[in-house]
């Protein structure tokens, strides 16, 4: 039985968690509360607070406001404070471990078992402000497993069975094994939803379990959206670089979109799509895909083309958390949320800004030497 509740202490991973936290040189405080005081606090929902205190106690944010309780150590930071980024598709350290190719579909495979908390690749991701990632099944799978949400810096699983990953793009079509055609692929997806051995498909059809459907070309996206609408699925399309041209279908199916990062030299359709989706009120987020800085680069390209920086940051944080189904605990700076906080030298969506410090679950897990404000404890 998969546990779908929050695993705050991650009992399964507790032993490794103690050994992990790759970038943590020193814990910020030993279980004591502290407050970050910053001129700009980006909440993660699009709003920004001025001269605010973010009070952290243990692993969570205790309060956000104009003052901190007496006796709490205040760390004044010279810059901006924002929630840690959420990478919507990540496979760091799990290359080859997310594609179970012995079978066509392994819909109930648990991506948490592909998580290697000790992988050195996480450090660079954390250093770029990514505190939460969604581990998803390989793009070449049809129903490759249940996405797991993990905190790489803490080596903890945040949520298992977060979403069902479905492949409806040509990436799931092989040239050497069945299915080799869209018709064959669709037959598999359809059969899976109709047969439903594990009960997960029923939950997905009731909208209780989000789906992340990979679809790239406009035709694939239109089909995926129609399929989701027909079966009452909730969740997001992953890919859809031309989402602006299939907006009606995506909106009609009440899906969000998770964009793959722009790469140098790629066309600008992702940017156009992001702006169109934002205008239409369709939620969107970005994948990290193992390349640190990708998400912020893509968001910055969008703001340069006219996207509101608040909307861009929301897509990196609170909006992404909502799409991943952990909006109630992650992605925003508010009382009760996980203390995943990044201190930036400037606005997080400004590419000239750099990461000064990263807190994950209240612990300082990364700091840029000499740049952090006084009293950072290192």
């Amino acid at each position, binding site marked *: 039985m998969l546990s779908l509740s929050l695993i705050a202490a991650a009992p399964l991973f507790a032993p490794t968690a103690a050994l992990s936290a790759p970038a943590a040189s020193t814990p910020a405080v030993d279980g004591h509360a502290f407050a970050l005081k910053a001129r700009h606090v980006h909440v993660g929902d699009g709003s920004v607070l001025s001269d605010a205190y973010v009070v952290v106690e243990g692993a969570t944010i205790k309060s956000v406001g104009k003052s901190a309780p007496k006796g709490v150590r205040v760390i004044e930071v010279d810059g901006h404070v924002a929630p840690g980024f959420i990478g919507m598709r990540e496979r760091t350290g799990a290359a080859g471990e997310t594609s179970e190719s012995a079978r066509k579909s392994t819909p109930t495979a648990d991506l948490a078992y592909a998580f290697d908390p000790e992988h050195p690749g996480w450090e660079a991701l954390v250093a770029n402000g990514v505190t939460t990632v969604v581990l998803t099944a390989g793009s070449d799978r049809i129903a490759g497993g249940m996405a797991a949400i993990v905190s790489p810096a803490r080596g903890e699983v945040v949520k298992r069975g977060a979403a069902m990953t479905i492949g409806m793009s040509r990436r799931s079509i092989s040239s050497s094994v*069945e299915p080799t055609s869209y018709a064959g692929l669709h037959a598999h997806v359809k059969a899976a939803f109709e047969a439903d051995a594990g009960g997960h498909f029923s939950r997905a059809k009731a909208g209780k379990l989000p789906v992340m459907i990979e679809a790239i070309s406009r035709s694939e996206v239109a089909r995926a959206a129609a399929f989701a609408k027909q079966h009452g699925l909730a969740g997001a399309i992953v890919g859809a670089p031309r989402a602006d041209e299939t907006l009606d279908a995506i909106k009609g199916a009440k899906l969000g979109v998770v964009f793959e990062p722009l790469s140098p030299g790629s066309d600008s359709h992702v940017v156009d799509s992001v702006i169109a989706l934002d205008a239409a009120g369709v939620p969107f987020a970005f994948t990290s895909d193992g390349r640190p800085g990708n998400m912020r680069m893509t968001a910055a390209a969008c703001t340069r083309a006219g996207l509101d920086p608040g909307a861009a940051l929301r897509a990196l944080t609170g909006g992404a958390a909502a799409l991943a189904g952990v909006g109630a605990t992650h992605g925003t700076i508010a009382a009760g949320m996980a203390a995943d906080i990044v201190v930036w030298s400037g606005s997080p969506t400004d590419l000239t800004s750099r990461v000064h410090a990263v807190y994950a679950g209240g612990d300082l897990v990364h700091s840029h030497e000499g740049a952090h404000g006084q009293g950072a404890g290192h």
Partner: protein
Amino acid sequence: MLTSLILSAATALAAQPAAPSAATDGTSWTLHASKVYTSTGKVHENALVVVRDGKIRAISPGVEAPRDALRADVITAGMVDASARVNAGSLSVEQSSEVTPGVDAASSVDLFDSRWKRLAKSGVTSAFVGPLNQNVVGGHGVIVKTAGGMSLEERQVDGAKLLCGAIGSQPSQRNSPAFGRPRSFYNRRPTTRMGVEWEWRKALYDAAQAKDPSAEQSMLRDVLAGKTGLFVQAWATQDIRTAVFLREEMEREGFGTMRLVIDAGAEAWREPNMLVRSGTAVVLPPVPSQGRTTDQAFMALDCAKVLLDAGVSVALSAHDASDASERLDIQAGYAMRGGLNREQALRAVTLTPARILGIDGRVGTVEAGKDADLVLWNGEPFEATTRPVGVLVGGHLVLDPR
């Protein structure tokens, strides 16, 4: 009296502006041409064609053009390509089996493919698309309008059910070497034409004799019963024979009478009587530049003429018209050079393919009540200097003559 009534009605309709109002969703127009070729044999001169909500409302000959009408020298029905091949390439073929009647081209057809725009602007308004011709039995095809909405529901046209397949070198193209062992299913089981025919025969016999037919076998039974047409690509004489002989064998065995359409029948002209005897329609491929087509079949300009004279129902196709010189109107021009008169050539790209596809109730002629799929020409159609200057698909203006 009657004439004046018609005229006054026409004038009243003509008073509607050419520019559509927002309420009509851009699908209401008034068109005028010196000649309207209807594909029914009738030609209207100085005629007004009134389009309302995507349908042809009325045709009124002998009327002056209202100032704001869309004008052209000639108007014809939108062309129908019964073998358009705007498929998803290898992704439309389920290569794990030779016989895949369960495949539906509706699963793979990409309405965002840029070829649709090109087809529509070339005057083709309806098209039949099957899976790529790599399987013995490839799957069911889909009939779509070349323009309109971006979902299949909006674009698909209900017509004849057609199961696509191939006889010839294509289905055995990825032959295994003469020796050695197959590495994957790419080394196709049929490596010969004989093997391809055997696969066909086995699939049909198995379906006919199955006590508890599978879903796919039921589809083949519909083919045997003539409920689903069999759309078989066969370029060369020997392959066309094979298709006809298969049909005759099934009939002899008492399995049913198949409705056969030969697609890409380049050499159908060699033995037309066989086709007449079996009531088989032919869709001709684009005329090859060097006389030889795929499978070394020989095709000359008078192919359509020979078949038509023998009494075979003939439609022309431009396939995906990737080369501008292969457009469907140019194919009709070639057929005229081969001996067809304009009316015959026009029918071979409008009414005949519409009948083969079973959509002639909606498209294929210029008649009141039909879909407003219309082509506006700058001269007599199919002449070398004539081209489509305006195209309407379901009343949507995809090429503006103004």
